[in-house]
C-alpha cells in the first residue's frame, strides 16, 4: 500500500515538474536565461563529436571498394540531408503547436529553425552535387530525390520570405507557420522518392528497422556526425531564438534591465 502511494506521489511530482517546466518555457526571461546556460554545452558537444566523427570518417575509415575516396563526402552529405528533413519536420510541428496554442516561444523557435534548415539543405544539395560528379559523371540530374530536395530549399526560403514580408511579427509567424505545415507534404515525397520512382540517387543504405548495408568502420563515423549536427541545430536555434526575443521585447522591462546590466 505504502509502495503504491510512494509511486503515485513520485509520478505526480514528475508530472508537476513537467508542467512547471512547460510553463516556465513560456516566460521569455526564463527561456532567455535557460537557453543562455544551455548553448555553450551544446556547442562543446557539437565540436567534440564533429572532431571525433570526422577523424574516424576521413582518416580511419577505409576507402570504398566501388567509389574510392569520394565516399567520404557521405560524412557531410548524409547528416546534412537528414537534418534538412528533420528540421523541417520540427518546424512544422512547432508551427502547429504555435498556431493551435498560440505559444509565442514556439512561433519564434519555428521561425528560427528555417534559416538553419535552409543552410543544411544547401549543404546537402552542394555536397551531393560534388559527390555526383565522380560517382555518376554529372553534377545534377532532375531525378525525384534531387528535385524534391531542391523544392525543400524553396519551401524554407518561402517560409523565411513570408515571415520577413509582414511587419507585425506574430501575424508574420502565424502565416509562415501555416506555410511550413502545408509544405510538410514534401517530406514523405523526399523520403520515398527513391522507392516510388526510378532515380539515379541510390536507395537507403541504413534503416531503423532493417539494419545497415554499410561496414561498421564506415557506419560509426556517420552516426557520430548525425548526432553531432543535432547539437549544432540546438545551439544555433537557441542562439537565434534569444536574439529574436531581445528584438521583439526591446521595449519591455526585462530586456532594458538586461542590457543595462550588461548581462546580455
Amino acid at each position, binding site marked *: 500500500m505504502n509502495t503504491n502511494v510512494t509511486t503515485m506521489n513520485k509520478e505526480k511530482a514528475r508530472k508537476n515538474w513537467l508542467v512547471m517546466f512547460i510553463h516556465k518555457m513560456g516566460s521569455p526571461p526564463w527561456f532567455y536565461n535557460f537557453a543562455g546556460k544551455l548553448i555553450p554545452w551544446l556547442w562543446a558537444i557539437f565540436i567534440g563529436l564533429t572532431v571525433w566523427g570526422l577523424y574516424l570518417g576521413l582518416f580511419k575509415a577505409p576507402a570504398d571498394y566501388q567509389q*574510392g*575516396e*569520394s565516399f*567520404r*563526402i557521405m560524412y*557531410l*552529405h548524409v547528416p*546534412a540531408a537528414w537534418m534538412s528533413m528533420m528540421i523541417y519536420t520540427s518546424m512544422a510541428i512547432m508551427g502547429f503547436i504555435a498556431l493551435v496554442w498560440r505559444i509565442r516561444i514556439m512561433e519564434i523557435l519555428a521561425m528560427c529553425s528555417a*534559416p*538553419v534548415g535552409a*543552410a543544411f539543405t*544547401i*549543404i546537402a544539395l*552542394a*555536397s551531393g552535387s*560534388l*559527390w555526383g*560528379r*565522380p560517382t555518376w559523371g554529372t553534377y545534377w540530374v532532375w531525378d525525384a530525390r534531387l528535385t524534391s530536395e531542391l523544392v525543400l530549399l524553396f519551401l524554407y526560403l518561402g517560409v523565411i520570405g513570408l515571415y520577413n514580408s509582414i511587419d507585425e511579427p506574430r501575424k508574420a509567424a502565424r502565416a509562415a507557420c501555416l506555410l511550413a505545415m502545408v509544405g510538410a507534404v514534401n517530406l514523405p515525397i523526399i523520403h520515398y522518392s527513391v522507392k516510388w520512382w526510378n532515380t539515379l540517387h541510390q536507395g537507403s543504405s541504413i534503416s531503423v528497422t532493417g539494419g545497415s548495408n554499410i561496414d561498421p568502420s564506415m557506419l560509426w563515423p556517420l552516426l557520430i556526425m548525425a548526432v553531432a549536427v543535432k547539437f*549544432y541545430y540546438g*545551439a*544555433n536555434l537557441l*542562439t*537565434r531564438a*534569444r*536574439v529574436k526575443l*531581445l*528584438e521583439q521585447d*526591446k*521595449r519591455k522591462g526585462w*530586456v*532594458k534591465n538586461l*542590457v*543595462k546590466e550588461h548581462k*546580455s
Partner: protein
Amino acid sequence: MNHAPFIWASYSIGTVVLLWCALAPLTRKKSVIRDIRKLNQIEERNRDPNS
C-alpha cells in the same frame, strides 16, 4: 579521376555555410543590443530633460 578536389570543395562549402549560419545571429545580436541601448538613452533623456 582524382577525388580530393570534390571532397575538399564539399567540406569547404559545408564549413563556410555552417560558420555563416552560426555567426549571423551573433552579429544580429550586437546590432539589436545597440538599438536597445539607444532606445534606453532616448527614454532616459525624455524622462529627465535637464540631463
